[in-house]
Each structure stands twice: as C-alpha cells, then as structure tokens.
C-alpha cells in the first residue's frame, strides 16, 4: 500500500511536502489507520502525531484521511483506502506545529467562549441537584463529544472565521448546557451567542455530521440554539 504522508518540520523544512512511503500491510486483518502510522514511525522515528487511548475515547488522533476527517484509531483501512493509496494530512484549517500535529488553541478558545460548565445561582441542595429521566435524556447526543475537533476543522465557516465562529464542536457543547435542567444561566448564555458570527455563520452544510466519529449531530444542536435565540428575540 502507498501512504502519502504530510510532512512539515518548521525547524528544517521551508514548506510542507507530501512524502510517499510504500508499506507492506500485514494480510488477513483490517488494520486501523493509527496502526499504519505506528508502523511508519518504526521505519522513520521523526514522524510526529498525537495519540493516547487508541480506542476512540480521548480524541487525540483526529486527522484527515483520504480527504475526510476522523480518528485514526477507529478508522479501519477497509473504510478509507482507495486504489491501494492512503493520503494522510493534519486536520485542515488549523496551524500545523509539525507533521500531523496541529495547534488547537483557536479551537479551545471557541470552546471556552460557550462557558462549558454548569452555572446555577440557586443555593446548593444538601445532597445533589436532581434531574428527572426525561430531563437527563435531553443531554443524550450532546455530552458524548470528546472534542477531537474533526467537525470544526471540516467546517468551511470555521476555516474562514476561526476567531469568530464558535464552530460545531463548541456549539454542540453550548447547547449541552442550554438544554441542562440544572443550569440557570440560559439568558446569559444566549446573550453571548446573539451576533452574526458565533452561531449564525453556520450554513447548515452538515460536514460536521458526516465526519463526527461519535455519530453526533452538531447541526441539529445549532438549529435548537437558533430556535432559542429566535424565541428570545420575538
């Protein structure tokens, strides 16, 4: 199999380049893309990439595989390899630090903006704040996000305005707290989203939905936020 790998080391390279590496993939089992990169690193230890849990939980190895973002550790070769070729690039739209490692600062800055923590101005009860099963159910499909950044870096609106548009990952979390029955700061949260960029840059093209490795639907969450903003403003 031919692997075309994005290489860039700012200390030695003037510009990024694609390195073609021929690799013998073991027969008889379907390797994950992360396994392939690990094999490549055995050949060439200078290859840089992030990984941790190697089972789709930590969200460290988000990358672009044959043009589609995903987690290398849970993407089998049978799913991505076309014509015996695998093109690996870092997540698009973020500054590259080295090879497949990107600078996630802007992504986290947008995440921070949505105040991703519970805010409640009522006195704390003796034991805990209770939720009914129905209230808890509203958080399904929202809390599972692992912040791998596959969605936001697949979003053209985020590419063009990563400093202003919160992006699908941040907005999914924004709605996770807007929908939480224990949160009392809905008005404050919405007042921070009511501008032409933060939420409304979403054009609903659903790239985020098509790449999310956890099968979540940020576009739907953005629609809910928009409805809350509309209700508040009419």
């Amino acid at each position, binding site marked *: 199999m031919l692997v075309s790998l994005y290489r860039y080391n700012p200390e030695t390279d003037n510009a990024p380049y694609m390195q073609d590496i021929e690799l013998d993939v073991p027969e008889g089992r379907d390797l994950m893309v992360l396994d392939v990169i690990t094999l490549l690193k055995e050949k060439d230890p200078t290859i840089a990439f992030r990984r941790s849990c190697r089972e789709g939980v930590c969200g460290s190895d988000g990358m672009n595989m044959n043009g589609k973002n995903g987690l290398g550790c849970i993407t089998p070769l049978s799913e991505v390899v076309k014509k015996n070729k695998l093109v690996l690039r870092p997540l698009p739209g973020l500054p590259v630090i080295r090879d497949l490692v990107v600078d996630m600062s802007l992504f986290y800055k947008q995440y921070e903006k949505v105040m991703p923590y519970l805010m409640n101005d009522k006195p704390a009860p003796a034991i805990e704040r209770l939720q009914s099963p129905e209230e808890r159910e509203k958080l399904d499909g929202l809390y599972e996000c692992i912040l791998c950044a596959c969605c936001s870096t697949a979003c053209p*609106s985020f590419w*063009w*305005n990563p400093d*202003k548009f919160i992006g699908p990952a941040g907005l999914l979390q924004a709605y996770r707290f807007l929908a939480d029955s224990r949160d009392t700061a809905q008005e404050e949260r919405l*007042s*921070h*989203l*009511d*501008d*032409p*960029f*933060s*939420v*409304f*840059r979403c054009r609903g093209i659903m790239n985020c939905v098509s790449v999310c490795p956890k099968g979540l639907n940020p576009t739907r969450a953005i629609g809910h936020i*928009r409805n809350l*903003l*509309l209700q*508040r*403003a*009419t």
Partner: protein
Amino acid sequence: MVNSATNFGRSGVQDWMVQRVSAYVLALYTLFLLGFVLFTNVTYETWSGLFAQTWFRVFSLLALLSIGAHAWIGLWTVTTDYVKAATPRFLVQAACGLTMFVYVVWGVQILWGQ
C-alpha cells in the same frame, strides 16, 4: 459575543430573520411575475396597467426593499468570509451598500414617479 458594525441588523438573529422573510417576499414576487407573463398577453397596456395599480406598486416596493436587504446581508457575509484585510473589505461593503441604495431610490422613482 463578536462585535460587528457593518452587518444589516442589530444582531445575528435579526439578520437571519430578515434574510428568511425577504426570501419569501422575493419568491412570491417572482412567482407572481412569472404567472403574469405566462397567463397574460403582455403588451404595453397590460404591463403599465399592472404597474398603475397601487397594490402592485406596494408589492413591488416591498420586493425592492427585500432584495436590498437580502443582498446586503448576503454580500456582507461573503465579504466577511473571503476578504480578509479590513480596508478592502470595508471598501467592497461600501460599494455594495451604495449600489443597493442607488437601486432602491431609483426603483422608488420608477414605481411612484410621474
């Protein structure tokens, strides 16, 4: 919260709503004109007769204002996506705004002038 002084409305929600409502107005106007052209024998008399009626002038003015607002929001969005440097972006936005203003005033003159 991202501050912006050049967008059409006071907020993102307002821009969003104006964009949707104006789209409906423009769709209705287009469908009406299409129907008129298809089902009426269009001559100078029928055409000027249509525009002589007050309700149609009001409808046309509504469509004109809608296209002005719709185009402003749309092109403002395009410029903030693709024109990164502030000065050229502002110049493009100003040029778009001026063009729309001229069209709206000119359109009012055509509709209501003698």
